[in-house]
């Protein structure tokens, strides 16, 4: 493996690669994210943004109480988010726990949702506290069951302790398991990384190790996908593209509940990495409640009056 020629796999080369990164201007990043959040998106642009956001949603259920019935209902909603309106596109993917992958894949195929991939959370999600053998088996199980996307968590403990090579090797090994069968998304849990400098460092580490996507959070820790964190990750992706000519995707997840939040994210993408990334292949939003709000806003644009949560499904 050549890791884009950036790292040779040794700890020394990884350290010198990470050490050359510039720091993040915290005040500047927060001010820029806040400034971009004031953009007003209306009428036909809003309509486009809502439909684009729907295609980017990774419709997620990650509860201990998930039942096969709930996962099937979620899959049905993923294929046709609004049963009364055929012009609503399908979502980007369905995101479930490992053991629910086969339930989701089977049901999606059954109802004509072959085009909707199943993403599985992996490597002892959400804490990442397990042995490497367990993490590899976890990932292998998900792929065998039909997962086309793997959302792995990094070992935050190792990262914060400065053992970057452990995190790097972990990602490399999971990437090998994924091969060309599954896309790899690497979750940082930015709420636990404390600083923007760490977020930038983790982004470059994961991208060099072979991540196809970098993802903010598990959704189990707050704060999650705050606009400044997403901005820092998008800037990392932009810089990485300049270095390697490779486009890495970004997935904010957690805390994005309203159409307004989602549109803010799209503005960040457009202004940081450009319109090439306004595409479900390179940008996803991990969410569950968001989809209902997008549908309600879409109804408002169509019908001209405010809708009610009573007219969308509960889960």
């Amino acid at each position, binding site marked *: 493996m050549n890791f884009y020629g950036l790292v040779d796999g040794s700890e020394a080369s990884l350290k010198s690669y990470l050490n050359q990164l510039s720091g993040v201007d915290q005040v500047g990043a927060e001010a820029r994210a806040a400034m971009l959040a004031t953009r007003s998106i209306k009428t036909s642009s809003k309509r486009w943004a809502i439909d684009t956001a729907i295609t980017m949603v990774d419709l997620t259920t990650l509860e201990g109480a998930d039942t096969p019935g709930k996962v099937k209902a979620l899959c049905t909603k993923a294929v046709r988010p609004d049963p009364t309106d055929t012009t609503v596109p399908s979502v980007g993917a369905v995101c479930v726990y490992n053991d629910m992958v086969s339930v989701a894949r089977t049901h999606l195929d059954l109802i004509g949702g072959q085009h909707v991939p199943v993403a599985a959370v992996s490597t002892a999600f959400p804490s990442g506290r397990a042995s490497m053998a367990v993490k590899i088996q976890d990932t292998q199980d998900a792929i065998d069951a039909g997962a086309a996307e793997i959302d792995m968590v990094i070992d935050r403990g190792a990262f914060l302790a400065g053992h970057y090579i452990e995190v790097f090797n972990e990602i490399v090994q999971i990437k090998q398991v994924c091969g060309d069968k599954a896309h790899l998304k690497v979750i940082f849990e930015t709420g636990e990384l404390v600083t923007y400098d760490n977020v930038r460092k983790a982004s470059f580490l994961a991208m060099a190790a072979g991540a196809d996507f970098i993802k903010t959070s598990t959704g189990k820790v707050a704060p999650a996908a705050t606009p400044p964190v997403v901005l820092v990750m998008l800037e990392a992706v932009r810089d990485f593209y300049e270095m390697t000519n490779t486009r890495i995707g970004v997935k904010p997840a957690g805390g994005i509940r309203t159409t307004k939040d989602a549109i803010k994210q799209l503005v960040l993408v457009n202004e940081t990495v450009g319109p090439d990334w306004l595409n479900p292949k390179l940008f996803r939003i991990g969410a569950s409640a968001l989809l209902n709000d997008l549908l309600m806003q879409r109804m408002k644009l169509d019908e001209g009056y*405010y809708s009610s949560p009573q007219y969308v499904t509960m889960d």
Partner: protein
Amino acid sequence: MSNRIDVKKTYKLYINGAFPRTESGRTYEVKSAKGAFIANPCLASRKDLRDAVVAARAAHAGWNKATAYNRGQILYRIAEMLEGRRAQFVDEIMQVTGVTKIKAEKEVTDSVDRLVWYAGWTDKIASFAGSTNPVAGPFYNFTIPESMGVVAAIAPETPSLLGFIDVVAPIIASGNTVVILASTKAPLSAMTFAEVLATSDLPNGVINILTGKKEEIAPWMASHMDIDALDISGLPAKLHAETKVAGAENLKRIHSFKSADPGRIIAFMEAKTVWHPIGL
């Protein structure tokens, strides 16, 4: 000798227990009966209505679950707080409407008494409007009135305080939450009443108050799918028909009233019938 500049109150909206300005940034002028400038209250927009409905919907579950006795106590508490600020209300009513002090004092007294009266109704309305029904089988059969959910309302222009309370109190007495548009020409009492509510143990979002124009907000209230019923007592009669048409989409119950009446509480309740086997 005094060079001190007056500290004037900014009249803002009351949404979810907070006092935000309108998102539109607009205001309008309120003038006294003699035409002198008094204040610049917010000219609320449809988006303020939308935000208020979200707050009211979120508050409904808790307010509806509170016992009728507890709701009565809180309504009584509102009356206590209103009594404590009597002078300010008298002053504002006189300023805006130009009535005599005696008339203004009577309106405030009536408002306090009316709140106490509605407070008394909270735990009696279920037996007053409900019933046990004879059925041909081994069952008890009860009809129980329950709150509807989120009710939007338009307060009458005058009397600005008593009219406002006559609209709002019966709606919340049964466990509904409300978004109310105050009198356009005399919104001061309603906005000061919000300060009374904020110190009355009333949960946030149960009463949300907007100020602005009826003809601008009423159509959005009527068409909003997350509003279950509408009190148009304060809406000019010429706008009633089109409001009822706009509210038909989600079968909104739309009523208007002229006087204080327990029927105002019942109008915003829904009867549910329960069958219960005898002997269990």
